[in-house]
């Protein structure tokens, strides 16, 4: 058995080489290409599992070597936070890859799609495995470019518009990160994560660096007022890509903020410079705005997109409250949201493929036509509203406890209010789908192919199954991570 220290690099090389082979193979024979993509994503997930034992033991997996000779060499490092996000990425990509062949059955330019699907996973995993800010920036920028081709895949006017908006805002975000990177390097002489806070003193330059981080990660995460790309990009992209965008890529923004808070600035400096007040305010606005806008949407995927904005607000809220339990809630919510929003977007994709309906008002009786899909949809919405024993309940509970720990009970009311808004915009969909028309008038059964319903079902099951079971690995990891943040 080889050393765990080689696994991160192996994963990245496998994905990059896999993308090139896929590009060649899928043009020749699409079925082989699709199978290859699924095999590669599975292999990546399998390899990532081997990283669990050392990291859970508390030993970050550090790459034995460094790469490139950009101004600095880049190396890889997997600590508990990287592992947590990395596992999510690996897992969700397997499902998206399995879901894609049926979803894309009549689509165009499929070889390109699969190539960029793997390249996007390569860049996402690169971001979380990077051991320093320079490597982070490298993959962060590449992520913007590779995911552009996924977002604009449909190539109609709407997709091109949404894609361009996404691309240019992402580029701006990358430049913001470059700006902060320069300042951090200028002040600290290094950009490595995991060596304690890099910045030690408050200064105008440090504030400027924080603004750079906030702009860059705020754009990626879809934080108010930088969320404007998100409600267009999510609906325009193919459903598996929407699931990945919402489930993973916007979390990369949150991941970056976690790194900025705890590896770059450090909790003392954040408190001293009162930077968390900025993110707290923005988080509250993001939650309320996302929920309110979601209520107004009739397009299903657009409603889901605005809901993602609100949910990112939760993560930012937990981060800004800066207590152990709020951080646990925020980190755990990354998992929660990835599962339930991934499930919802895949359901929406199945509905669009099977019925061609995108508008909620047209979805009367769809639950009778596509029962398995809509039951999974219902489970995910229950988790979204935060009903026990679903994951959504656990993360909201942690966030609420964290708010009380911080002595800010007002945020508990915010959480409750926002959950009610969640209910208000999700339950009508379910009600319309199942009860709007009598069974006789519902029309023919048109359930999606198993290739689509199985990933949906897995995600739906994961919205509660770990919460019910005896060992909740994501929650354990989230606790370890937040304790690490708080220096416990």
């Amino acid at each position, binding site marked *: 058995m080889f050393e765990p220290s080689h696994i991160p690099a192996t994963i990245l090389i496998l994905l990059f080489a896999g993308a090139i082979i896929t590009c*060649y193979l899928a043009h020749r024979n699409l079925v082989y290409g699709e199978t290859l993509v699924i095999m590669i994503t599975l292999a990546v997930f399998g390899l990532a599992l081997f990283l669990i034992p050392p990291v859970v033991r508390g030993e970050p997996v550090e790459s034995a070597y460094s790469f490139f000779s950009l101004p600095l060499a880049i190396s890889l490092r997997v600590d508990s936070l990287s592992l947590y996000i990395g596992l999510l990425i690996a897992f969700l990509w397997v499902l998206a890859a399995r879901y894609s062949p049926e979803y894309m059955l009549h689509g165009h330019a499929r070889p390109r799609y699969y190539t960029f699907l793997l390249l996007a996973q390569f860049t996402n995993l690169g971001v979380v495995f990077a051991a320093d800010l320079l490597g982070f920036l*490298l993959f962060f*920028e590449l992520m913007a470019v590779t995911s552009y*081709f996924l977002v604009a895949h449909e*190539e109609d006017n709407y997709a091109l518009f949404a894609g361009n908006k996404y691309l*240019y805002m992402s*580029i701006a975000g990358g*430049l913001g990160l470059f700006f902060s990177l320069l300042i951090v*390097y200028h002040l600290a002489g290094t950009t490595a994560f995991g060596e304690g806070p890099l910045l030690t003193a408050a200064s105008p330059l440090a504030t*400027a660096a924080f603004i750079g981080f906030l702009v860059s990660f705020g754009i990626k995460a879809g934080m108010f007022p930088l969320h404007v790309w998100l409600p267009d990009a999510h609906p325009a992209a193919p459903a598996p890509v929407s699931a990945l965008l919402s489930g993973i890529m916007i979390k990369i923004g949150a991941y970056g903020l976690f790194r900025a808070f705890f590896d770059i600035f450090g909790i003392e400096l954040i408190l001293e410079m009162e930077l968390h007040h900025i993110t707290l305010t923005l988080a509250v606005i993001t939650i309320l705005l996302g929920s309110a806008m979601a209520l107004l949407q009739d397009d299903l995927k657009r409603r889901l997109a605005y809901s993602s904005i609100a949910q990112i607000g939760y993560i930012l809220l937990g981060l800004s409250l800066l207590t152990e339990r709020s951080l646990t809630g925020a980190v755990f919510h990354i998992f929660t949201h990835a599962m339930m929003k991934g499930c919802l977007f895949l359901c929406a994709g199945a509905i669009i493929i099977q019925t061609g309906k995108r508008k909620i008002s047209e979805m009367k009786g769809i639950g009778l036509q596509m029962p398995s899909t809509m039951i999974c949809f219902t489970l995910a919405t229950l988790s979204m509203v935060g009903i026990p024993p679903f994951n959504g309940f656990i993360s909201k509970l942690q966030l609420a406890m964290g708010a009380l720990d911080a002595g800010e009970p007002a945020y508990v009311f915010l959480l409750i209010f926002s959950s009610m808004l969640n209910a208000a915009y999700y339950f009508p969909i379910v009600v319309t789908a199942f009860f709007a028309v009598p069974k006789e008038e519902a029309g023919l059964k048109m359930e999606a192919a198993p290739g689509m319903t199985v990933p949906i079902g897995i995600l739906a099951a994961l919205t509660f199954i770990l919460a019910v079971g005896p060992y909740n690995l994501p929650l354990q990891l989230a606790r370890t991570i937040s304790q690490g943040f708080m220096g416990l």
Partner: protein
Amino acid sequence: METNNPIINWLPLVIVLLPFSAGLALYLAGTGRPKLTNTLVLVSTILPLAFAFSFYPRVKAGLFPSLTLDILPPVGLSFRVDYLGFYTLLLFAAAGLIVSIYSLRYLEPFESRRHRYFGFQLLVLSGCYGVAAAGDFFSFYLFFEFMSIMFFVLVAHYQTGSAIRAAYKFLIMTIIAGVTLFLAVAVIYWETGTLTFAETGLGLEQSTLVMVAFIGFAVAFGIKSALFPLHLWMPDAYSEAPLPAATISSMIMLKTGAYGLIRVFGNIYGIDYLAQFDWAYYLVLLGAFTIIFGSIVALAQEDLIRRLAYSGIAQVGYIILGIAMINQLAIIGAAYHILAHAFMKGTLFLCAGIMVKEAGSRQIANLKGIGQKLPVTMTCFTIATLTAVGMPPFNIFISKWHLGLGALELEAMILVMILLISSMLNAAYYFPIVTRAFLGTEQLNSHSEFSGLTGNSSGHQTAGFTSKQNKLPLFTEAPAMLLAPVIVLALGCLVFGLTPVNLPLELIERGIAIYF
């Protein structure tokens, strides 16, 4: 330190004389002999590159090939290839070879005046090599002037009315540059009695004349490297000259201005001397303004070549800005940007040549969907645009990194902002070309220029891209002699940051460290 190997010491002269004599021979005897042209051009560009490479072990060990010839009294002609000179010479020789290969295919085999074009292209290249290998400022001046004047013929190559006008514009500005440079060189010589490249400046006295000389240098090199407001010759010359000539100007000749400015700062005045005054401050302002100006004007261009030209103005602004910041990191960034920009803009220009031939139009609006006909070319174009935006791991990231750190060292956050804004503008004017080339178009099956050119309809079966779903060929590609230079340049945008040791950066760091 100098090498004591006589053969090595004579090689810089050979490097300059080879393209010079080949160029003359071609112009005088090359009429209607395309085979001779090809051979001479290839030989006289491959050999200089090989010779330049052969300096590497010695230069790395700190032994610089140098040669002084007792001609042209009173100063004499001398060569000296130190770290910076070696770096520049290698870059120029590589660029010269790559563009020459491309231009051999780009200019149609039986085009009239082809021998004249290649003759003068070789003469220009010999001037460029001389600039990089020059051992004192007088030799530098000679080669610089020679190169500039010879380029006139390339601009006027097509002999249309507008080409002649552009060539005159170029000539007039070049002569102004020559006169001011002569004035500056004369003043320096009068003040110090020498023009050698001293390691930390010539130890000039403070006087008005010296300041006038500084302005002279700034104007001369500003014109050559198209610094605002001295850029006027450039967009016209680029759009009228044959494309390979514009590429040579962009990759090499603009850089001679920047290289000269580094020499003036480091070897003539000395960093400590300049740090006493705020002369360079005005160059910082001009550089910063040039960056923003060039980027914004580029955004407004509908003609691909002109957009590239204005973008070049902006990019050379980076170099001037970096040099004028007079700080070690910034000058390293500026010197590295010479290479970064050469590869980036070279790729873009050569790709543009292929695209324009294929589309039959230089209007950006007519380049929609060209990525399906020319996927390899457009992939290289995409790599170059990502480079232009300054993404890691591409070259310009490395120069921007140093420039940004240098600006922070000066506590000039505004300059970092300018770099960022310019990067954003780069994205704004390059990415639409790429996205429209690849996305949002129906499969275009119109006539392809290159399927006719190659005379090989089975060329459609290229690689694994022929889709099973529709039997129509998806794309044709340019002939290998056009494509290979493009691919090499595109790899050059990428490869230096990925190798374990960044050789050019190492050379620059050593060369610049001498000045401080």
